[in-house]
């Protein structure tokens, strides 16, 4: 649990962070979004005290961060730095091992952990462990940066644009990898990003910052349904909010009992009413995907498949209702 109260940072006359407060419950992800220079990094850096707050306090699991020994505080907080910041004179393995070594783990345990992490991020240990950062692509470096941050299984993880400067496909894969790890390990995460889609995808709560203040802090859905006037509305974007809301929900949430309409014939699935072959949805697909398929196939209903058999169906009306304004 991270609690931030009235946190303020002045650089000379300039206020970089202006009395912000929020809390992140255990195992939750908070995304800090906002334009360049609005104070996101400074906020993160005050939490692990790379920057000393001008006023306000940071509580981590009920303890005041300002009262904790600096190194002990930081060893317990994973940090993915903006700009990656790998140690150029160390191999990938040595980079990932940084915090475990500082914490004095035994060698076998460190080696096992490094291999496990590299595999987790799809970097073959045999190939990558001995490489130097300059021999890696940008995306590989970012993965090593994230692996290094979570190497000692910190309860708290701060990430400053961890997936920036990546092509969309690599970014989506890394985001998915990260989401899976985060759920499994139940880390408490603060994620800084410029990318609203990333925030919607990964965060339980989103804080929109501008000029050092938090303008709105809410769940992704609430932010989409009720964005405050002004900057938040510009940032969130109203044009495709229905689709964005749909992408927050899964087919499972609105699926109904299947009617007798679907018939499995060998490998294919037939819609008896139209006589056409259809592709079913997966229970974990987002409603955005469901909507896209419904529109593309020009149908009113699609079956939900699980392990080859029909377990339910999704109706277009239900999808539209899920993404629409609430009365």
């Amino acid at each position, binding site marked *: 649990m991270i609690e931030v109260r009235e946190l303020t940072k002045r650089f000379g006359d300039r206020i970089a962070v202006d009395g912000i407060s929020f809390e992140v419950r255990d195992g939750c992800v908070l995304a800090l979004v906002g334009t360049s220079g609005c104070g996101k990094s400074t906020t993160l850096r005050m939490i*692990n005290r*790379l920057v000393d707050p001008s006023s306000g306090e940071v509580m981590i699991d009920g303890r005041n961060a300002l009262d904790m020994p600096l*190194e*002990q*505080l*930081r*060893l317990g*907080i994973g*940090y993915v*730095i*903006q*700009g*990656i*910041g*790998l*140690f*150029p*004179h160390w191999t990938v393995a040595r980079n990932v091992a*940084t*915090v475990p070594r*500082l914490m004095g783990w035994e060698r076998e345990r460190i080696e096992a952990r490094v291999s496990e992490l590299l595999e987790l991020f799809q970097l073959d240990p045999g190939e990558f462990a001995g490489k*130097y950062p*300059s*021999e890696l692509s940008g995306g590989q470096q970012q993965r090593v940066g994230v692996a*290094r941050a979570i190497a000692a299984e910190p309860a708290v993880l701060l990430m400053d644009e961890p997936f920036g400067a990546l092509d969309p496909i690599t970014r989506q894969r890394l985001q998915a990898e990260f989401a899976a790890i985060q759920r499994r390990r139940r880390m408490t995460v603060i994620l800084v990003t410029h990318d609203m889609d990333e925030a919607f995808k990964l965060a339980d709560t989103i804080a929109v910052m501008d000029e050092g203040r938090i303008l709105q802090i809410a769940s992704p859905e609430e932010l989409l349904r009720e964005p405050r006037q002004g900057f938040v509305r510009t940032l969130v974007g109203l044009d495709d909010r229905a689709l964005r809301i749909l992408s927050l929900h899964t087919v499972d949430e609105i699926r109904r009992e299947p009617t007798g309409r679907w018939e499995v014939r060998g490998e294919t699935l037939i819609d008896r009413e139209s006589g056409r072959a259809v592709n079913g949805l997966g229970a974990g697909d987002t409603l955005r995907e469901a909507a896209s398929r419904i529109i593309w196939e020009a149908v009113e209903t699609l079956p939900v498949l699980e392990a080859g058999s029909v377990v339910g169906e999704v109706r277009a009306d239900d999808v539209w209702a899920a993404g629409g304004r609430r009365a």
Partner: protein
Amino acid sequence: MGISVPLQRRAGSGAPFSHAALVYAVPCVLALLALPFLSFRPNRIVSGEGVQVWDVAEGWGLVGTAALFVLAGATVLAGRQAARALLGFLGVALAMAVAGAGAKDLMADAPQFARVSLGGGFWLSCAFFALAAADALMRLDLRPLVRLAVAGFVAAALAAALASGWFDSLSLMQEYRANADTFAAAFRGHLILVGGSLLPALAIGLPLGWLCHVSSRARAVAVPILNILQTTPSIAMFGLLMIPLAALVAAIPELRRFGIAGIGVTPALIALTLYSLLPVVANTMAGFRAVPVETREAGRAMGMTRWTLLRQVELPLAAPVILTGVRIVVVQNIGLAAVAALIGGGGFGTLVFRGMGQTAMDLVLLGTLPIIAMAIVATILFDAAIDTMQRRRP
């Protein structure tokens, strides 16, 4: 750099004709044609008469000249840099062999006090052959260990040649035999001056450089002072140090027991140390400054203490630049230490100044050549170390 090196290499190894090599071969041939190769003097201090390379010892002269010209031409025409390097070294070896044979021949029926010195033709042709070899080796871009092996081989060959007695008729070797004890003492003295000033320079310079890196106030005070020290002429520095030291010893005579005095090794060591500070401090600062901010921040954020960060991250990353500063200091002090002889500090300067006093140029050379050799050896060793460090992380 990254682009120009492969280009050069391609031009050097593929082309049958090297324009760069002309820069060395043409002056080499001109020097052999225009300047005397040896000079013969009836005794040690009168001025000598020149002997052209083709006039030296019967047989050796003409054949040797022809061979030298062929070698010079071959360095230009050689297809490979490795071949050019080898030809350059062969040129040096041949010039030395001819000089040794010529001296032996001239001295065979000469009066007892006659001397044979090396002439401008010898020195310049040797220098240009050596430059051609060095240039070719540089373009080969050898790995540090290979470079050290080549240097070691050349040094061993040189030592064996000097020990063989082939050059014993040269005045330079006669001076060496007459001054062997002084030479050994001068060598020891020179090492003491260079090593003895390097240690305190590092002990003061490294922490001071780090301090100047972290504190702009320290930088504002220290750097101008070090700049002034660096630009003080060496003779003035040696002289100025004598005064306070002499006063100190006069006040506390017990210091004499530790070898401290107004003249001698102490002021020389202090002066060399002072000259070393600016390069060490400046390069230490530059090395630390070159550590990327994100790297430093990452280290702090991971929970490194300031000391751990310094030891594990900042120092290793700054090391190549710092070592470059140390190399500058060592080479600079090998040269400057010669001046220390003026205030009784020992070293090869002793031979140089004694030779000047006696107008015996070969004695001067006996002091100068080892200084040059030491500087070359230091450069090769440090460059190999710096290169190894940088290659380990591509």
